[in-house]
């Protein structure tokens, strides 16, 4: 075996790199994504967003092909074909603002009735949560198109998530499955609760907040919507999920409730941001 000696200088350089990385982590964490580091990150993300979007368009067929191969023989393969069609239609329509507007109108007519009079902004997904430890995605519009942190994001059927950071031309959307996501929901019998994400591909769990009332009685398949109470981050009446499981909890009168999100984000290339903030 040949021993390979590393020069002291190289050790110092690598130690300095590691120290620099840890310093950046600490500074970014303390700045909560804002501050100088947050601004630099947004600027870099904005600068690369056209390239990212172009890469997305070029590589998406490859990704779809590989994903289709992985899921061959399952129900998802059929869904994949639908995704390809939707993506092709969406990308084509995105090239013309008028066509995009028309598509947006169609979406509204087809399934965004819960939006009411709230203005919306159509956004294209350019990064579908490439991390395994966060359930988020990146879209192609930001503050220069009127999008702000905290605004709800929806698609045909119901709620998708919320904008957690916004650069000039890109925004990050935290999806409902993220463990740090929570939304107030209305439950039968005048009850309200909080639906929280449990991770990638997992159901949402609902905690009943109104313990002084009679516990809610729910049926599997029932659609649960946002409560829209004061200080809530979402307007009232947006469908959140369908009840997938109701069971009793030992030592508690309140049932354990699980929801399956009504929107499968994988089926969409375009989403709608509600230009709405809590009153």
């Amino acid at each position: 075996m040949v021993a390979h000696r590393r020069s002291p200088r190289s050790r110092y350089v690598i130690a300095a790199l590691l120290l620099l990385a840890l310093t950046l982590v600490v500074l970014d964490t303390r700045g909560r994504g804002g501050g100088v580091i947050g601004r630099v990150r947004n600027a870099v993300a904005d600068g690369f967003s056209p390239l990212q979007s172009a890469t997305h368009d070029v590589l998406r067929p490859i990704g779809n092909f590989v994903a289709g191969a992985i899921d061959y023989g399952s129900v998802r393969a059929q869904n994949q074909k639908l995704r390809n069609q939707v993506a092709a239609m969406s990308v084509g329509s995105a090239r013309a603002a008028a066509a995009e507007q028309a598509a947006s109108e169609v979406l509204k007519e087809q399934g965004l009735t819960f939006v009411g009079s709230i203005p919306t902004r159509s956004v294209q997904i350019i990064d579908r949560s490439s991390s395994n430890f966060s359930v988020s995605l990146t879209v192609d519009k930001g503050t220069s198109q009127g999008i702000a942190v905290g605004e709800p994001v929806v698609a045909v059927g119901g709620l998708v998530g919320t904008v957690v950071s916004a650069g000039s031309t890109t925004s990050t959307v935290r999806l409902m499955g993220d463990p740090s996501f929570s939304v107030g929901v209305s439950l039968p019998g005048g009850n309200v609760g909080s639906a929280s994400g449990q991770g990638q591909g997992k159901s949402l769990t609902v905690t009943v907040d109104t313990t002084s009332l009679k516990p809610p009685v729910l049926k599997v398949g029932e659609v649960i919507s946002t409560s829209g109470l004061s200080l809530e981050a979402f307007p009232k009446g947006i469908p959140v999920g369908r009840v997938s499981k109701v069971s009793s909890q030992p030592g508690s009168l309140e049932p354990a409730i699980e929801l399956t999100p009504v929107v499968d984000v994988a089926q969409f290339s375009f989403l709608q941001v509600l230009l709405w903030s809590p009153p």
Partner: protein
Amino acid sequence: MTSPIIPKLRIAVVIAVVVLAQTSIGGDLRVAGVAPDLPLVLAIAAGMVGGSQTGAWIGFWTGLFFDFLAPATPIGLHAFTFCVTGFVVGTFFESILEDRIFTVALVGGVATAASVLVFVGVGDLLGQSQLLASGRSWLLEVILVEAVWSALLAVPTEWLYRWVGPHGGAPVRKAAMSGALHSREQRVQ
């Protein structure tokens, strides 16, 4: 004499392409809900081909660029993890491991598993508790599936890095045995 700028530019382009590919289609390639980590595989390949220093440098820059485009975790966490991973893999390839297909695939998988643990562990220590919020079973699932992904991708990525990198196809161990590694690294970096 070839300018050392050209190999660096080639590597920079590869880093950009790999990170952009990860952020564009990485999420579409999920198996059991777990996406591959292409930038991490690049850092591992750099360590295998170029040795510990190259692995650390490539890992740092790849991770840092990925941090800027992956806003879910603070800037620097991927840079730290990939830097450590590239360095450790490079150290093993300099001194112990042979540059064979089976070894490359195996090390790709094992290094990825270790890297995920470092990423989550260091992140949790620095206040990123959301990394463990999905539970230990999810962490185990991520480690296993991502390791398999990396084992599959390590061989073609190592070949790619060897092709575009500054080492001209020479495995790092051979370079180390000939005593040329230091001077080569110094010329490149």
